[in-house]
Each structure stands twice: as structure tokens, then as C-alpha cells.
């Protein structure tokens, strides 16, 4: 009897360590990325000098007549990145928050769902589509509007990034607003506030920390975005001298020159990536600090000490009513611009669809893109899925809730998900392509992507594990089943919906990715000849190369057609998510209390 017990507990320990190792993997990954990028930048930083690198105004990497300290200055790009991000944050932040307010409080019931779905779909639209739209529509339009030679620069970059961060800001603000307790609203009304006043003076301030997290996340996304910006910023390495002067961001700098850089130049580009990484880490940490401390306190003023005052109570509320109409107008702008992009890509893509099937006699690009994309999806899922699932199992089933190690793992998983894809691309390029000698290959691309999708999988599986009630675990354990048996036969089957969701979300992320793949799996348009070790471009990468490298009209048409196919894939993924939710019920099936779907705020 005793022997059996001992054996069981011993086995329990072994599996626990396996799960723990998987969970700790994200810590290893984050440190790995930081260390590899730092180590690879050190030669450049040492030769150029940190100060010269950060504050040098001249980026002229190939001019060997100059000293190293004078060739590699990233200040113009640093300023460019900050300007573009700032613009995107202001525009996207305002639009996103007001769209969320509209969605939660004023949107007519029957339009709520469609509006929400449009925003959700756009959260999944690949950045190359936004960039492509900016390049083919926005830049020429600005050129005509302002009557200048260049329509590219800060303004179109900010606009494109605004559209990209808008879904993030809007959906996080929406969730924050929905979770504000309704008694706050009732309390405000009972004190004589109008609906609009209650929203702007109580509900929005109460949702503040969620809204700010959304804004910070949007900032992270904007500063790390590469492909969309490359297509609209103009890419010259000069200081911004106006809203429409050609500039370059840190991310664009890496992506534009990485393919031909070598030696010091290459290290300088990696150092550029390190600077970007530092920015992102600061942004990520500020979110986690925000989560900890959301209550600010005002200064204590000295009270006047007058208690007998005659005050006149007059009805006010003009500003909040204006706010309401502002939110109507801005939501309309959001809706029109999002749907406009979609329609534009469809309208331009459908007539040209033949080009990707080789209608002009060239090799059809679609089939290699198909094979390459799905090979990368396969590789990364087969690596990241088991690790991510085990990590989620450790966090929810084995770890002591709230312990230091759990918090650390969560923090690092979140950090990993906030790292921009260009950094993953750099890391993959340093480690897989060069150090491991995989060259530009589907395998290197798949390995890189497996790191990128890991946080998504951990999060999504964990959420569905959390939703499973403890009574189920207790029931199985009480029948004498071991913890592992309970996990395999009771818990994980119930988490199926979450696992499928994780898979589909990951596929979406890989389909839309381009910056991380450009320097790991390359951009060739052929079938992989050497299977996993041959290079190959995915759909997104091909949209980018057709759009930017194409010289002929045919190439532009191919880009439209590719973009159209990409949109179809994104919509298909969104539909698949909906089906999983519909048939497997997602997490909802376990909630004993029905979650409050919508706050019903009637006019009062």
C-alpha cells in the first residue's frame, strides 16, 4: 500500500517538472531574445560608441570614407519612430475610445453585434494590407490634396498605424467600459446626472485603467510595426521636416537594409533592434505596473472652512451632449474607413485574381505561397502547441496560484506577446538562420513563428482551463483517479474549445505575419525544392514583395490579388473562430451565472 502511494507521488513530481519546464520556456525565450540581440549589437555599439549611435544624425552605412562613429547615427529614425507613434496614438486613441463609448452606450441594439464584429475582424487584418492600402490610396491622395511631390511621411504613416491600433484600443476600452459596475451608473443618475453626464463623469473615469492599458498596447503595436510603415513613410534617413516629408522609422531601417547588410552594418541594424526592444520592454512593464496600482490619489487641499454657502443648482451637461455626438461622428468615421479598406481590396483584387494563377504566362504564385504558408504553420504549431498547452496546464493545474513564479511566468508571457515581429525576425535571423546554419528556410521561419505564437496559445488554453469548475476536478480525484489521469481524461477534453481557438488564432497570426518571416524564411516565389530547408515566401510576404519590388503593372495587379486572398483567409479564420464558439460553446458553457452581455442603458 505504502509503495503504491510513494510511486504515485513520485510520478506526479516528474510530470509537474515537465509542465514547469514548458511554462518557464517563455522566460527563457524573452531572455534569449534580449541576450542574443544585445550580444550581437555589442560589437557595433563598441565601435560606433553608444552616444554616437543614439544621437548621431547621419545614417550612411556604406560610405566607407567616413569613420564608423559618423556613419551610424539613428537619431533621425528615433525621432521618426516617435513622431509616427505619437500621431497614431493621438488619432487612434481618440477614435478608438469614442468608438468604444458609442458601441457600449449609444449604439442601437441591432447594430451592436455587426459593429463589434467589424472591429474584431480588423484586429486580425495583416499589417501589409494596411500598408498596401496606404501606399496605393492614401499616399497618392495626400500628394494631390497637398499638392506636393511626396505624399509619404509622418501623416500617412500615422494614419495607417491609427487604423491598425484602433481595433486594439477600441476593444480593450469596450471591455473596460462593460466591466464597470452598473450601480455606478444608477448612482450617478439618482444624483441628477443625465445619461451623457453619467458616462463621461463616472463610467469612463471608472474604466480608466483598462482604457489606458489599451492605449499603451496600441503604442507598443504602433512603435513596433514594420511592413505597414515601410510602404508609406518614404524611407529616407532624414529628420522629419513636416508632416509630408519622407522619413524612416527604426523598424523600417532594419527591414530595409537587413537583407544586404553585413559586418558592422549588420550589427548596427541589430543594435537598432535593441533600441526598439528597450522601448517595447518599457512599454510592457508600464502596463504591468498599471495593473498593480490603478488608484491615484489627489492632493489634500486646505478646505475653505465655509459651511454656509448659498449655491445655485442649474442644469448643465452641454459638454457631455457634445461628447455624445462626437462619438457618433467618430464611430461613423471608424466604420467607413475600416469597411472602405475592405471594399477597396476586394474591388481591386477580384478582377485581377487571374494573375496569381499565372494568367499572364508567369509561374502561378498562389500555389507556392500556399505550400510555404502551410508548411510554416505546421512547423510552428507542432512545436508551440504542446509547449504552450503544457505551460497553461502548469499555470492553472499545478502551480500555486499567485505565487512568485506564476506571476513571473505570466509577466514574461505577456512581454513575449508584446515584442514586435521585426525583433523576432532579427532573433530568428541571428539564431536559426546564422548560428544554427539553417539559412533562409521554411524551418527557420517556422521556428521563429513558434516563439511568436506561444503566448497566444498559453493565454487561450489557460482561459479555458480557468473556466472549468473545480467540482469536475474534485469529482475525478474523488473517484481515485490520479492528477495526470484527471488532466488527460477529464480536464483537457473540456478545454478543447480553448485549444482549438488557440490553434486558429495562431494560424491567423502566422498568415498575417511578414516582418518576422522576411529574414528567416525569405521571399522566394517558388515551390520549396529542398523541403524544410529551402526558402519560401508566404502570402503576406508576397503581398509585400509584389507591392514594393514590383516595377510593372502586372506586379501591382498581383499584389492586389494576393491581398484579396489574404483578406479571404482572414475572414475564414474569423468565421472558424465563430464556429468553434458556436459549436463547442467556448468557455461560456461552464459559467454558472450568465455573464452580463450588455449593459442595458436606457434613456432616462
Amino acid at each position, binding site marked *: 500500500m505504502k509503495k503504491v502511494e510513494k510511486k504515485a507521488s513520485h510520478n506526479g513530481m516528474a510530470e509537474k517538472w515537465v509542465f514547469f519546464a514548458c511554462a518557464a520556456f517563455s522566460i527563457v525565450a524573452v531572455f534569449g531574445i534580449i541576450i542574443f540581440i544585445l550580444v550581437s549589437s555589442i560589437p557595433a555599439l563598441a565601435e560606433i560608441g553608444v552616444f554616437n549611435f543614439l544621437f548621431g544624425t547621419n545614417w550612411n552605412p556604406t560610405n566607407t570614407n567616413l569613420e564608423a562613429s559618423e556613419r551610424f547615427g539613428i537619431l533621425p529614425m528615433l525621432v521618426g519612430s516617435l513622431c509616427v507613434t505619437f500621431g497614431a496614438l493621438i488619432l487612434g486613441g481618440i477614435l478608438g475610445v469614442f468608438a468604444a463609448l458609442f458601441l457600449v452606450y449609444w449604439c442601437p441594439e441591432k447594430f451592436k453585434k455587426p459593429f463589434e464584429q467589424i472591429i474584431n475582424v480588423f484586429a486580425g487584418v495583416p499589417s501589409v494590407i494596411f500598408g498596401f492600402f496606404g501606399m496605393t490610396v492614401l499616399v497618392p491622395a495626400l500628394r494631390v490634396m497637398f499638392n506636393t511631390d511626396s505624399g509619404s511621411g509622418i501623416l500617412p504613416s500615422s494614419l495607417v498605424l491609427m487604423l491598425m491600433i484602433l481595433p486594439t484600443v477600441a476593444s480593450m476600452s469596450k471591455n473596460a467600459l462593460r466591466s464597470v*459596475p452598473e*450601480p*455606478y451608473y*444608477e*448612482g*450617478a*443618475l*439618482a*444624483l*441628477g*446626472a*443625465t445619461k451623457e*453626464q453619467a458616462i463621461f*463623469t*463616472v463610467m469612463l*473615469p*471608472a474604466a480608466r485603467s483598462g482604457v489606458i492599458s489599451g492605449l499603451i498596447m496600441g503604442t507598443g503595436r504602433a512603435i513596433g510595426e514594420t511592413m505597414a510603415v515601410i510602404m508609406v513613410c518614404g524611407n529616407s534617413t532624414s529628420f522629419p521636416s513636416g508632416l509630408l516629408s519622407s522619413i524612416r522609422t527604426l523598424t523600417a531601417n532594419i527591414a530595409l537594409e537587413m537583407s544586404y547588410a553585413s559586418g558592422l552594418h549588420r550589427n548596427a541594424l541589430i543594435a537598432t533592434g535593441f533600441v526598439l526592444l528597450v522601448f517595447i520592454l518599457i512599454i510592457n512593464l508600464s502596463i504591468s505596473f498599471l495593473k498593480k496600482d490603478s*488608484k491615484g*490619489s*489627489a*492632493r*489634500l*487641499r486646505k*478646505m*475653505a*472652512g*465655509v*459651511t*454656509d*454657502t448659498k*449655491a*445655485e*443648482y*442649474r*442644469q*448643465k*451637461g452641454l459638454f457631455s451632449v457634445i461628447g455624445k455626438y462626437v462619438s457618433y461622428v467618430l464611430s461613423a468615421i471608424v466604420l467607413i474607413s475600416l469597411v472602405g479598406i475592405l471594399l477597396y481590396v476586394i474591388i481591386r483584387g477580384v478582377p485581377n485574381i487571374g494573375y496569381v494563377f499565372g494568367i499572364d504566362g508567369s509561374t502561378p504564385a498562389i500555389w507556392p505561397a500556399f505550400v510555404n504558408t502551410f508548411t510554416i504553420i505546421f512547423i510552428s504549431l507542432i512545436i508551440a502547441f504542446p509547449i504552450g498547452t503544457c505551460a497553461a496546464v502548469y499555470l492553472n493545474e499545478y502551480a500555486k496560484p499567485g505565487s512568485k513564479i506564476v506571476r513571473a511566468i505570466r509577466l514574461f508571457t505577456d512581454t513575449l506577446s508584446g515584442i514586435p515581429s521585426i525583433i523576432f525576425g532579427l532573433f530568428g535571423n541571428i539564431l536559426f538562420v546564422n548560428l544554427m546554419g539553417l539559412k533562409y528556410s521554411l524551418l527557420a521561419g517556422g521556428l521563429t513563428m513558434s516563439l511568436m505564437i506561444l503566448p497566444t496559445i498559453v493565454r487561450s488554453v489557460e482561459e479555458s482551463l480557468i473556466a472549468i469548475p473545480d467540482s469536475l476536478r474534485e469529482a475525478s480525484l474523488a473517484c481515485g483517479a490520479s492528477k495526470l489521469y484527471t488532466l488527460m481524461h477529464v480536464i483537457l477534453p473540456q478545454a478543447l474549445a480553448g485549444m482549438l481557438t488557440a490553434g486558429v488564432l495562431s494560424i491567423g497570426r502566422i498568415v498575417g505575419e511578414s516582418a518576422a518571416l522576411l529574414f528567416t524564411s525569405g521571399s522566394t516565389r517558388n515551390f520549396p525544392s529542398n523541403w524544410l530547408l529551402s526558402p519560401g515566401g508566404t502570402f503576406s510576404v508576397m503581398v509585400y514583395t509584389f507591392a514594393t519590388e514590383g516595377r510593372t503593372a502586372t506586379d501591382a495587379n498581383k499584389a492586389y490579388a494576393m491581398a484579396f486572398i489574404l483578406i479571404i483567409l482572414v475572414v475564414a479564420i474569423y468565421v472558424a473562430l465563430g464556429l468553434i464558439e458556436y459549436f463547442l460553446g467556448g468557455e461560456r458553457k461552464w459559467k454558472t451565472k450568465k455573464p452580463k452581455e450588455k449593459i*442595458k*442603458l*436606457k*434613456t*432616462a
Partner: protein
Amino acid sequence: MENKKTERKDKTKNSVKDFDFTRDVAINIDHMDLWYTQFHAIKDVSLEIKKGEITAFIGPSGCGKSTVLKSLNRMNDLVPGCRITGKIEIGGQDIYAPGVNLPMLRKNVGMVFQKPNPFPKSVYDNIAYAPRIFGIRDKKTLDGIVESSLRKAAMWDELKDRLNKSALGLSGGQQQRLCIARALAADPAILLMDEPTSALDPISTGKIEELCDELKKSVTIVIVTHNMQQAARISDKTAFFLLGEVIEYGETQQIFSAPVKAETERYISGRFG
């Protein structure tokens, strides 16, 4: 639909002076009926509530006492499918007439909820909420209102050094008294209390009861309570509700010592409910 119409008219009329709270009758409910979609929740209720008195609504759960209370500041408008007929007059105004200024009505008829609901703001900002909503920006005036409201709620000494702290950090009883102070800052003539002590411990309950006694000098109070001793202790008049009807309404003393109706007697002696 109807709501929208009234809302639009609200803006045309600023009826702060239309309420007349010098009258002897603060609230007059006249043959009121209320439906939640199909459910007939309130059946032909008529009540006259005197100025400066504390009136308690008692009765078993689901008898409609809270519903009637919430009709008095039209918080029932928030419930979809709620329909009211009959007449409710407050300060001489028919509050369900078209063109009623809802914010002004609710400023004059304050409400304290069952569960304390302070805003996630500082103590000061909570109290100053209503004055600010109604256009008072002057710092000295606001300070004055905050201090006098807190004094009225007997909380000034407790809170004067923590005015800048979040109201959510207060204890449950303090939060509820803060909500009373917050309602008082709107300078109401009537205060509706919906089971204000049901979520509180006995000591906090005692404090709130004392407070009611003090407040009735300046405001008319209507209180819904499950606690019959509470009704007996603090109220001047008591209305006993059962299944959406007022069974008996009269002097508290008389209701508790010599009820006229058999149902009232059975309820207050604890035989059902």
C-alpha cells in the same frame, strides 16, 4: 419611444423652481398601477406622504415596496418594459407628465441604494459630484457643500483628513453614510432609502438610524426596510405592502400596536414573510 419624447422635451424646460416643497404633502401617489411587461407589479396604490416625516415601507420580498420607491425618482425608467399609470405628485408636480426635467427631479429626490455604491473617486469628488453636475465650479462653494454635507451625515470628523483618499477604501458602513452625504450634497427635499442597512453590521445600522432621525429636520425620508424593528424605531408612518398592494398605511405606533388588518397583524408578529 415614449422615453425619447420626454427626453427631448426635458431640454426645453428647466423646472428647478417648479417644485414646491413648502407644501405640507411632499409626495402624493394617486391610484398608481405598474407593469413589468406583462406582470402587474403594483395594483392601485394611493399614499400621501407628509413633509418632514419618516415613512417606512415594509412587507415581504417581492411585494412591490422597492418598486414604488423607485417610481418616486423615476429610476424605474431604467427597467425595460416598465409601464406606469395613475398619478404621482412630488412637490405639487406630476412627475410622469411630459416635459418633466428628470435631472432636476432626481436632484430634488435623492436616493440611497441597498448596496453602497460610492464612485471610484476620492471622498471629496464623490460628495462634490452632484454640485459639479449642476454647474457649481467655485472651489470655496464646493468646499462648503462638501463639509456641510459630511457634517449632516455625521462623518466630518471621521473623514476630514481623508478627503483625498479613494472612497472605495472605506468600510461598508462608512461607504453607505458617504452615499447619504453624497445625496445630501445635491440639496434634496426628499431622500429615498432602499433597504440602506441590509448589507451592514448592527453598529453601522445603528449609526444610519440615528442619522435618519437627525436628517428628518431638513428632508422628508421614505425608507424601505425588511427589518420591522427598524421601521418601528425610526419611522413616523408605516405602509405595509403585500403582493403589490398597500394593505395598511398609518401611524407607525398604531400599525405595530393595533393593526387594523389581519394580514398586517400576521406579518408583524412574524407568522409569514
